[in-house]
């Protein structure tokens, strides 16, 4: 029960606070569902609706709800509704309507309590008209306390923070990755565009030839001229020798390398084609 009283205290605190905010507008706490017109706004803000107000009245004042002057209350509520309709306060009108419904419910309960009870009640039939109201009040009260408890749970951003450690990034530039499949795809794209041309199967052997062409060119680039035999290394094996020879032939055919022999049986040399020596190459 202490929780409930705390709630009532909190509500009272809230009303006092609101009343202060509103200036000297209204400082009396309500004693029944009757709301003085000048306190209307404060009441509407302080309570979460008629259930809340009724609960507070019962808990705080030991109010016998059936002692409320229902006729006067109803009249008063109807007047609010009129006032609010005039002010075009849609939101408030709706809320006032909730209070009105509550008043209607209380009137219904009271009227049924006044009626003489039937002597014998059928099973599950007639029951105390207040039971439903009590059930709703209790359920609301439960949620009201639950809401307060929920608000008491430590909350991210309010009661604690997530840690935020800076992630340092290495200053290395990420380079695009390329796989050999990407190159094959690129080639296929080229071929697709050039599909009118005659196609030919190219195998590893020819790739080796082209690689050796690059190697021989690089070698000749640095030394200028080399003995034919220096281009071959018997240690590479027979097939490598053949590929090297093919590469040399291709280089000659593409006019990138000259093979020279100054006289019969003299050593054969390979050299980079020089523009001065071969102006007719154009």
């Amino acid at each position, binding site marked *: 029960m202490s929780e409930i009283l705390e709630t009532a205290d909190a509500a009272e605190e809230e009303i006092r606070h609101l009343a202060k905010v509103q200036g000297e507008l209204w400082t009396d706490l309500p004693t029944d569902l009757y709301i003085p017109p000048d306190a209307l706004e404060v009441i509407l803000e302080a309570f979460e609706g008629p259930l809340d107000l009724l609960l507070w009245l019962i808990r705080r004042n030991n109010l*016998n709800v059936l002692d409320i002057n229902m006729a006067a209350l109803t009249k008063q509520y109807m007047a609010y509704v009129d006032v609010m309709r005039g002010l075009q306060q849609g939101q408030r009108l709706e809320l006032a309507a909730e209070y009105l419904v509550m008043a209607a419910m209380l009137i219904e309960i009271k009227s049924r309590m006044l009626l003489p009870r039937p002597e014998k009640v059928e099973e599950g039939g007639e*029951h105390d008209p207040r039971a439903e109201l009590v*059930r*709703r009040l209790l359920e609301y009260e439960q*949620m009201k306390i639950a809401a307060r408890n*929920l608000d008491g749970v430590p*909350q*991210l951003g309010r009661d604690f923070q*997530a840690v935020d450690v800076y992630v340092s990034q290495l200053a290395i530039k990420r380079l695009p990755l390329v796989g050999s499949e990407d190159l094959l795809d690129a080639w296929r794209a080229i071929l697709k565009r050039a599909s009118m041309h005659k196609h030919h199967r190219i195998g590893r052997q020819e790739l080796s030839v082209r690689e050796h062409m690059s190697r021989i060119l690089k070698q000749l680039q640095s030394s200028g001229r080399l003995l034919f035999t220096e281009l071959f290394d018997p240690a590479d094996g027979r097939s490598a020798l053949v590929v090297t020879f093919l590469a040399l032939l291709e280089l000659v055919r593409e006019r990138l390398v000259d093979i020279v022999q100054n006289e019969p049986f003299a050593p054969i040399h390979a050299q980079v084609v020089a523009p001065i020596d071969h102006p007719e190459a154009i």
Partner: protein
Amino acid sequence: MARKPTPAEQAEANQLIEIKRILETVLLASVGPMTLTEIKRVFEMELSNDFLRRGLEALRDDWQGRGVELVQLAEGWRFQTRPEYQRYLDRLNPEKPPRYSRATLETLAVIAYRQPVTRGDVEEIRGVAVSTQIVKTLEERGWIEVVGHKEVPGRPALFSTTKQFLSDLGLRTVAELPPLPELAKDIQLGIPLEALPPVE
């Protein structure tokens, strides 16, 4: 320890130290909570859930008694500051997040404890209309979401709380929410209570 650890035990202990170091780094740097699946992805080698959980629990123990703690939440594991240290953080950043109105908190409580519920259910319990603004506020915070529709006329949306709501409250499951207060046994209506039938 009386017995000397075997080489295998020693190797596992060393591995645990390194794994804890990586876990700590990644979790400290992570913006949000990390699930076990995400944490697993960090490692080159395949780690068993069991081994990983042992590492996380050992790390949590290591952080005992400090201003920051490792916690397991609905959305995974996260390092967060302890509420006791909030006052220091508040002095640094005095701007507090706005407190929710009672209407918003009550709506949240009904959704949290009675989920899944329609807006009509919330209104029934609170006895007042629930404004669209309240629902929007809670949705934008990422605390409630529509999980379906009730098969009644109008097919109203059914709301539940989210995993983020639980994580933001430092919880793993809805069952860890503060227990619902017991229904009061009676209410003073000015009439002897005995006259009332038992209330369910």
